[in-house]
């Protein structure tokens, strides 16, 4: 589902964020991306989400070579990737419902379908009662769930998360991870960047570890 072939990423500052990275994530797999801060985890996820492009080497997602994807097609590509961020990236002047509905509105879904799918996604993350609330009225854990609901609402085959439990206490973090597992069980490829070793060591998934932009470990 996600394949890196000898990928290099060099920023304009000449700093090399990724060098010679190769790995493959199978369809329906769940894996963790680990490493110290600055090891290149965020850069790697940005390459998959096409927020950045590789300087060298191929990134292939869902049989699509991202190097060959023209700029105007990026929005349509991103609709097939669910993104979850540490800072949630919610719109604070809109209700929970409107935040989650955003990807569907963008995709031009009809009104009734939007209502149905937003409620299903909120139900999935346990926030069905909060659809009229503003994000600011929610706790950190709840805000992260809204972010997850938004990421999955248009049923993407791939879900990427960058430090989704970074600001949460251990118990909430476990709940969030459990949510990701549930999406994985219905066939979504899940790739989570996290430096929370205690938490991810408890879970039976592959670790892809980066060290200074190189692949240090790749094991289950």
């Amino acid at each position, binding site marked *: 589902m996600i394949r890196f072939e000898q990928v290099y990423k060099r920023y304009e500052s000449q700093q090399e964020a990724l060098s010679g990275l190769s790995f493959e994530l199978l369809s329906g797999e769940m894996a963790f991306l680990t490493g110290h801060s600055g090891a290149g985890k965020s850069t790697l996820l940005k390459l998959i989400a096409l927020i950045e492009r590789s300087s060298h080497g191929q990134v292939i997602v869902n049989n699509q070579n991202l190097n060959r994807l023209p700029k105007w097609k990026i*929005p349509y590509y991103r*609709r097939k990737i669910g993104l979850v961020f540490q800072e949630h*990236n919610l719109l604070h002047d809109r209700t929970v419902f409107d935040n989650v509905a955003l990807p569907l*509105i*963008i995709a*031009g879904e009809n*009104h009734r379908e939007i209502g149905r799918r937003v409620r299903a996604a909120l139900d999935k993350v346990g926030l069905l009662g909060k659809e009229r609330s503003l994000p600011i009225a929610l706790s950190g854990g709840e805000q992260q769930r809204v972010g997850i609901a*938004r990421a999955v609402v248009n049923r993407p085959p791939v879900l990427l998360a960058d430090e989704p439990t970074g600001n949460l206490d251990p118990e909430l973090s476990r709940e969030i991870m459990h949510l990701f597992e549930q999406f994985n069980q219905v066939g979504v490829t899940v790739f989570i960047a996290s430096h929370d070793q205690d938490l991810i060591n408890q879970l039976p998934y592959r670790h892809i570890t980066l060290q200074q932009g190189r692949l240090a470990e790749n094991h289950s």
Partner: protein
Amino acid sequence: MKLLNIHNYLLRHVQVMLSSLGELWRQPVATSMTLLVIGIALLLPAGLFVILKNVEQVSGEWQHANRISLFLQNEISDKRGEQLAEQLRTWPDIVEVSFQSAQQSLNEFREISGLESLLDTLPSNPLPAVIVIEPAEDQQQEAIEALLARLAALPEVDLAQLDMQWLQRLRSINETAQRGITILAFLLSLSVLLVIGNTIRLAILNRQTEIRVIKLVGGTNTFVRRPFLYTGMWYGLLGGVLAWITLLISLIIISGPIDELATLYDSQFQLKWFAGQMLFALPICGLLLGILGAWLAVSRHLNAIEPS
């Protein structure tokens, strides 16, 4: 399915259109200030246009009075004068000829001036006989000038005078004013464009976070651009309507004195409002300028805002 998509698409447009109007409504002070600037900028050329068209109407009314007076030599007899008038009547570029003897001229002057006693003391009639000629209508200015020259060359004629030379001057002033207004309209349109562009630029900067998020979840540039274009459209449209209302109020204010003035000059002149045309033209111009201004601002700034 296709029909449903079109339906969704249109529905989405209507939603964005209304929500961008709601956005303006929620910031009444900032919005009304921007609208006022746009309204005034649109009002000025429109108002000047109305004034100019009315001045043209005035000069048009007097066009038929484009008369030539031939003052005859003193020694020409009334009989000879009448013969000349008959002769002139056959010229193809002349429609109306009237002869007024020296005595008639004196009588007329006596009536108008009220200087009877003074005139009675004069030893002889100082006034000449006059032939008044109305040239055929729709003649070019040059043709009338040529006619004037031919008439002046007649041996019986002492002086041939085109009464309405000032009309010609008024026309050229009018033409100058028209060019001036065109330039002014262009410059003010440009300023509307810049005002709207700048307002939209600020709106874009205010919503950077939102734009980034929308792009992250797969929003196209078209999608991001849409609300800003509608905002620009509203600014232009409402500014145009405001300009129209202001124009109407201004015309109401000046129409009273103008009617009075027209009565004093015994003129058929009536102030033309162009209210219908302006109701159409001002909002449309505003709308187009608004969309264009927003488009320029959006295309300049949108690409710079990318998720990072």
